[in-house]
């Protein structure tokens, strides 16, 4: 009896499951097929290639894509439909997980089993140049160099202004001189200088102090913050300097302050290496005397109780909780995203803060952690792709100016508009500041942070010039110059130029080079951060142990790393 009930249940559920997937005709029938005729499947394997050829003739591409949890549907998707219609093709998805590690695992499984690989792969920042080179050398990815040079095959790619296209070409070219990828290049200025300093302006006003410009002035201000109870709750709970070292988007305040002494990108690119003043030599900024002076300065702040030890232990949750505590207790912090203060435009703690310029150190240096915008390699073609011409046409379509807008902003007149009548009255921070003449388009829906089926959430190649990125207006909320969260233009003025003239680009190593420096690359940045924590908190004495620190770095292979980086740099020039 029980068994019969169970059986009925299975039957019903199976039917429900299959029938409710109705509209997805692309995948479902083949599945049911597979299930019912498994034994048959094996026998007819020989005939499969023929089937495949037929579908290829039907203009079908299997696109493996790193999914995004905010895309609710890929098949019934505005952008998918748009592409299919415009190119007269069929897109079948091979959906990869969204987390990067998982994509890597799955991809290596697919490649290892090497059967029925998809045609095209779209992932975002998952593959390192080293992995790409390895897959390219072993024949998993197709060499696209010839196509990118051919104006008739890739007209849109070749229409990109030469200056920007050269940067993209350089990123796509691996250490063996071949290109296996097409990249996304959407330069902008906000993300390049994430270490924005915010000081508690309410406290400054209360204590009658002015905004500090140098590291010495900062110390005076912090002392006043610490001693004079500016939040007025009678408890000495004010934290002078707050941040968190392991933060990935501007929260590492030790890097922010260090840049008043020595330019150091905080390890975000090339493990923290930089270029000498003349732009010819690769140097390690974390092994210089200026760096030592920076550590001594922070150690001094720490000794006076002006720099919180929590910087070295906090995580994202604790960091946010401290920034948003009932009574504001933070005097100075460094953040990349205002989302550290939820609902910033109404957040009372945030409204007390004010963004200030990078501080000037005793040597007159005033830098901020900065890395050149580097394109990310997003689209690859698998070597077993039968319909290469279609794949190339598909890839090139992403660089079409109109398509480029859709991949990022969604549907015209639904999510964005270029209608002159509508945008003529709009403006944004850059335009108000006179950096650009007028806005060129406006976003009119809030589709980005909401689950939707409008785009692939900007996965895939794309090109948008700096001007295009900075002349977008927000059509949902008119620009209000009084709004304290509108900081893009101010950021541009305060931070964008605060870096040395020559910046080390993302280096591409060959496989042999990687082998040589792998260990140094893995160990040194961690060791530097750990030593910074120890030096600043006084667990190690800067005067006595600095030489030992340099020796340790040497022992970990710093010299070889810098020399190899120099080779890679010269090679890439």
């Amino acid at each position: 009896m029980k068994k019969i009930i169970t059986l009925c249940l299975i039957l019903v559920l199976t039917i429900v499951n299959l029938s409710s997937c109705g509209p997805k005709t692309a995948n479902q029938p083949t599945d049911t097929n597979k299930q019912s005729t498994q034994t048959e499947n094996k026998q007819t394997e020989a005939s499969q290639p023929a089937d495949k050829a037929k579908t290829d003739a039907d203009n079908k591409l299997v696109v493996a894509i790193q999914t995004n949890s905010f895309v609710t549907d890929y098949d019934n998707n505005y952008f998918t439909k748009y592409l299919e219609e415009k190119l007269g093709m069929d897109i079948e998805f091979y959906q990869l997980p969204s987390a990067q590690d998982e994509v890597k695992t799955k991809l290596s499984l697919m490649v290892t089993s090497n059967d029925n690989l998809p045609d095209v792969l779209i992932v975002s920042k998952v593959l390192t140049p080293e992995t790409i080179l390895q897959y390219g050398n072993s024949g998993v990815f197709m060499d696209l160099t010839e196509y990118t040079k051919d104006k008739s095959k890739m007209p849109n790619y070749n229409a990109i202004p030469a200056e920007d296209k050269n940067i993209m070409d350089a990123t796509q070219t691996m250490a063996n001189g071949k290109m296996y990828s097409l990249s996304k290049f959407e330069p902008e200025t906000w993300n390049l200088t994430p270490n924005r300093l915010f000081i508690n302006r309410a406290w400054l006003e209360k204590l009658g102090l002015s905004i500090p410009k140098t590291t010495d002035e900062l110390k005076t201000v912090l002392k006043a913050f610490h001693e004079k109870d500016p939040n007025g709750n009678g408890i000495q709970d004010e934290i002078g300097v707050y941040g968190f070292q392991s933060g990935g988007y501007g929260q590492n305040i030790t890097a922010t302050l260090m840049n008043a002494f020595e330019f150091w990108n905080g390890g975000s690119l090339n493990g923290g290496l930089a270029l000498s003043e003349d732009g010819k030599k690769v140097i390690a900024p974390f092994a210089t005397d200026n760096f030592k002076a920076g550590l001594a300065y922070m150690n001094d702040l720490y000794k006076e109780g002006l720099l919180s030890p929590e910087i070295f232990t906090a995580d994202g949750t604790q960091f946010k909780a401290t920034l948003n505590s009932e009574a504001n207790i933070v005097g100075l912090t460094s953040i990349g995203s205002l989302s550290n203060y939820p609902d910033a435009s109404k957040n009372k703690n945030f409204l007390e803060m004010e963004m200030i310029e990078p501080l000037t150190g005793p040597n007159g240096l005033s830098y901020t952690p900065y890395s050149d915008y580097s394109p990310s390699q997003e689209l690859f073609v698998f070597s077993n792709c039968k319909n290469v011409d279609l794949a190339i046409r598909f890839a090139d379509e992403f660089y079409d100016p109109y398509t480029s807008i859709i991949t990022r902003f969604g549907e015209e007149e639904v999510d964005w508009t270029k209608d002159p009548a509508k945008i003529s009255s709009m403006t944004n921070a850059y335009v108000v500041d006179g950096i650009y003449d007028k806005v060129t388009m406006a976003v009119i829906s809030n589709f980005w942070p909401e689950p939707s089926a409008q785009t692939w959430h900007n996965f895939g190649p794309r090109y948008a010039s700096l001007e295009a990125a900075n002349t977008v207006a927000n059509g949902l909320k008119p620009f209000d110059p009084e709004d304290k969260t509108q900081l893009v233009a101010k950021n541009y003025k305060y931070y964008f130029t605060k870096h040395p003239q020559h910046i080390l680009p993302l280096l591409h190593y060959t496989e042999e080079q990687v082998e040589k420096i792998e260990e140094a690359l893995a160990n040194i940045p961690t060791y530097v951060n750990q030593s910074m924590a120890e030096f600043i908190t006084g667990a190690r004495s800067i005067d006595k142990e600095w030489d030992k620190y340099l020796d340790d770095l040497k022992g970990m292979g710093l010299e070889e790393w810098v020399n190899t980086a120099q080779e890679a740099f010269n090679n890439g020039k």
Partner: protein
Amino acid sequence: MHRLKKFDFDDKLYYVITTIILTVFFLLVLYPCIYVISASFSSGVAVQSGKVVLFPVDFSLEGYKTVFNTYTVWLGFRNSLFYTIVGTAINVSMTLVAAYCLSRRDLPGRNFIMLLFTFTMFFSGGMIPHYILIQKLGFLNTVWALLIPGAIGAYNLIVARTFIQNTIPNELMEASQIDGCSDFTYFIQIVLPLSKAIIAVLVLFYGVRHWNSYFNAMIYLHDKNLYPLTLFLREILMADQIDPSTVTDPELQAKLAQTAGVIKYALIVISMIPVLLIYPFIQKYFVKGVMIGSIKG
């Protein structure tokens, strides 16, 4: 008299200490649950600024609204139910059949077969051979990839076999055979009804495993329409843990993380509900079943 009193005191001390330890563990387990539920009913701003400690702050249903409006959550929920029900049915029937056979003392080569099963508890081929096997079977991207592999868990098999062997006396079989009962009828009409406790235990073990599993689905499926709820949940949970330095536009990522932070707790609560609902009904068999299986084994 004196002795008894001392005994009393020891007993009391024992109870006090046990109660304290158990209470501490109970609270340790309970707190995350309460936190998740409270957070799911709080406003996103309060959760993200760390204001929720025990009770909901700024009561809001924002998270649930977003979750219920998202098509993928229902899809995942339905798929998970399917995998759990069908998968468990397959598991339980296969395990019971195998366990019954192995419990019969007259099965030739019984110990050797058992050894083969036990072997799989300690050694496995590893991920890549597994993947290739699934691929060769044609299971890739089908529901079977989640239902068939691991249909019999060796541990559960041992528990079930020991249970049948020890609670159902051999005499019962002899008696039924005298009455003309075939092996099959004996299994269906006598063994199964007597094994309710162990069936309940197996259902719970396998069911919870199916409901919570995500790894196989992640590895073997590449069509979101087949994804279980756990994978959608995982994606949302990961969305606010992505290292900003690894994405092209951290500012946009931060905006996504904010939405994810609002809906993740609601999603966790929703995914907990089915197991919470089923557990009380099975729980009475639970302790009994496992104990019988293990002690006499």
